[in-house]
């Protein structure tokens, strides 16, 4: 009894080796000619689909770098852990990446919740962190770089388009968590800036599938347009029921999330036509980098891959941004890389020009307004070089390098 308890309790590397489970990713500290990077995405559970895509684009970025001779003479080695859409597991892997694998950088976290679990851990154990997902904005932390979009970059353009072309009256449907709450506050602000008004706002938990009462409420309010800030499986049910009630012929729809869950592939084109979105990236962007990227990506992962959205592109661009900083610093050392990034780095990426803003640790980038037609987002307008002005209003890491929190940005 004593023996069995001890061996189980230890459960460290020794026990792991004897375990019957297959272990494709060998855990060990880097060899001298390697830089270790951790990929911490949700490869199972609620965020599985997008997590896999993000891990794939990260893999492509790393393989490309390694194939072209590596980074400062070293190969990048990736350790991959599945966060299982589970916060406790996220915390454990963040600890493992920082303490056991001693990685140079962690890329990952999809939900804001998992980011806020991992971020303090990676701060505490001094491990550089890249968060590659569009989110509600406000993270201000010298150890963390947020390389995707925030509401001031995309939502502003979306709502301004809605108010100008469809009318002044809007209605918000949002997922009931802080991304949904904060984004809908921004929607209200941007609508007011354009002289519009929001007739109603409703929040939904992730598992609601019956939107009957909501459709009735929307019709009673009679808005010109509806903006959806929905995530998970719910949006699909909503677009379906909205179209089934014939409302898509009368009320316009725009969305801050449509397409990132590949919704257009499941909906018929009559259900999804006319939905307007605004993202940093969609596959229909026409430039040389994007054409080249798509060619390489499909060669590596097959031609039947679902269309890539802003999220997987962010993790690709995030890895490239980190790699550029390592080259610039001539070292993968945490502080040197941070300083290189804070000095400003600008890259030509598939989404367009992509630049690090050293003051906020967020990125300045192009955003594209597009309308779905036959399941494909057709770009209407491109807005060049949008700064992360929401986070910039509250965060200045040059002045306050020790700042470390997520601000709730006052919207008014």
């Amino acid at each position: 009894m004593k023996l069995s308890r001890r061996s189980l309790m230890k459960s460290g590397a020794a026990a792991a080796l004897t375990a019957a489970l297959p272990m494709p990713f060998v855990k060990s500290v880097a060899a001298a000619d390697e830089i270790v990077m951790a990929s911490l995405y949700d490869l199972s559970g609620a965020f599985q689909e997008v997590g896999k895509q993000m891990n794939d684009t990260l893999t492509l970025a790393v393989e490309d770098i390694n194939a072209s001779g590596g980074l400062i003479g070293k190969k990048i080695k990736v350790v991959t852990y599945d966060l299982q859409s589970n916060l406790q597991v996220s915390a454990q892997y963040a600890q493992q990446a920082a303490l056991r694998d001693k990685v140079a950088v962690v890329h990952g976290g999809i939900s804001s919740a998992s980011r806020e679990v991992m971020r303090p851990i990676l701060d505490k154990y001094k491990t550089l962190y890249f968060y590659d997902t569009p989110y509600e904005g406000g993270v201000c932390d010298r150890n963390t770089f947020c390389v995707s979009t925030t509401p001031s970059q995309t939502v502003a353009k979306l709502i301004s388009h809605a108010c100008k072309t469809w009318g002044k009256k809007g209605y918000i449907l949002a997922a009931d968590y802080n991304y949904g709450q904060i984004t809908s506050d921004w929607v209200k602000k941007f609508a007011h800036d354009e002289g519009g008004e929001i007739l109603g706002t409703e929040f939904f938990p992730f598992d609601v599938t019956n939107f009957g009462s909501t459709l009735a409420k929307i019709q009673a309010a009679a808005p010109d347009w509806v903006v959806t800030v929905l995530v998970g499986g719910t949006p699909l049910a909503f677009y379906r029921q909205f179209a089934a009630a014939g409302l898509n012929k009368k009320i316009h729809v725009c969305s801050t999330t449509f397409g990132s869950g590949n919704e257009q592939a499941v909906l018929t084109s009559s259900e999804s036509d006319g939905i307007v979105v605004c993202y940093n990236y969609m596959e229909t962007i026409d430039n040389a980098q994007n054409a080249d990227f798509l060619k390489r990506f499909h060669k590596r992962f097959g031609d039947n891959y679902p269309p890539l959205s802003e999220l997987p592109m962010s993790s690709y661009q995030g890895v490239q941004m980190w790699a550029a900083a390592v080259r610039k610093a001539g070292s993968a050392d945490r502080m040197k890389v941070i300083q290189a990034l804070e000095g400003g780095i600008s890259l030509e990426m598939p989404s367009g020009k992509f630049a690090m803003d050293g003051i906020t640790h967020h990125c300045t980038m192009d955003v594209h307004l597009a309308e779905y037609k036959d399941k494909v987002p057709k770009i209407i307008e491109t807005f060049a070089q949008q700064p992360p002005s929401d986070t910039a209003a509250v965060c200045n890491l040059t002045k306050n390098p020790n700042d470390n929190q997520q601000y709730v940005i006052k919207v008014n």
Partner: protein
Amino acid sequence: MAYATIVGIEVVYAIATLILVSLGLAIIFGMMRVINLAHGEFLVMGGYAATIAVHHGVNVWIAILIVPPIAVGLIGLVVERAVIRFLYGRMVETMLASWGLSLLIVGLLTTIFGSSTEGVPMPLSGFTIGAYQASGYNVFVIAFSLLTLGAVYVLLRFTRLGLLARGTMQNAAMAAALGVDTTKVYAVTFALGAALAGLAGGVLAPVAGIVPTSGGSYIGQAFITVLGGGAAALTGVTSAALLFGSVGQAATFATNPVFGSVALLLAAVVLIRILPNGITGRYFKGWL
């Protein structure tokens, strides 16, 4: 007035879906005293069956009404033979085993289909009441739920199969002594319950997106409806669905869907406290 009609349709629709979703569970629980926590996953499998059929070019109505009950009914038969039959009479163990089964099915579905949302196109368009648009499919779901309820009643009340099933459930030893093959009856009844779950999954497929984990959002409500209803499968489910559905929808319209579901759950807790054996434990005794 038009708005009131729309609200009315929504309330009735909520009750009808509650009946549809719970009916299979109620048959299995009411007749066999087995609580099948994999019921939600049976529904989801029905949804996937419909999706696959549509992808293979099967007519939408056949894909949602015929394919799912057959597919899931067969799966139910396998489950009964492989797992459930060892656990008859042991309620807690069946609950735990079927919980394990539910996790297992979620895992299998995820491995096979991935976790992206699947769906079936909506076969009916909307119609207009006054200034409002309503979903034609919702009206179909209401009618179809009543039809299913009626069909199950006829099956259990007026056919030889129904008689054997009811007899076996009431006193298996006596039925066996009279020459009934009770093993077969148990298996068929469980398969019937599973088929009804599959049917519900198929019917709801055009309305809701299907992911491997969506069973979780049905099981809680179905579970509570069935236990709130009590032992008499059909009357119990109908009465509990009427009560919970209207309470839930009233709260949803007054506030939002979250408080709607909380109101539904609270109503269930209070009901179980007042009527520990469910509605049919006190009223409608001896009904089917």
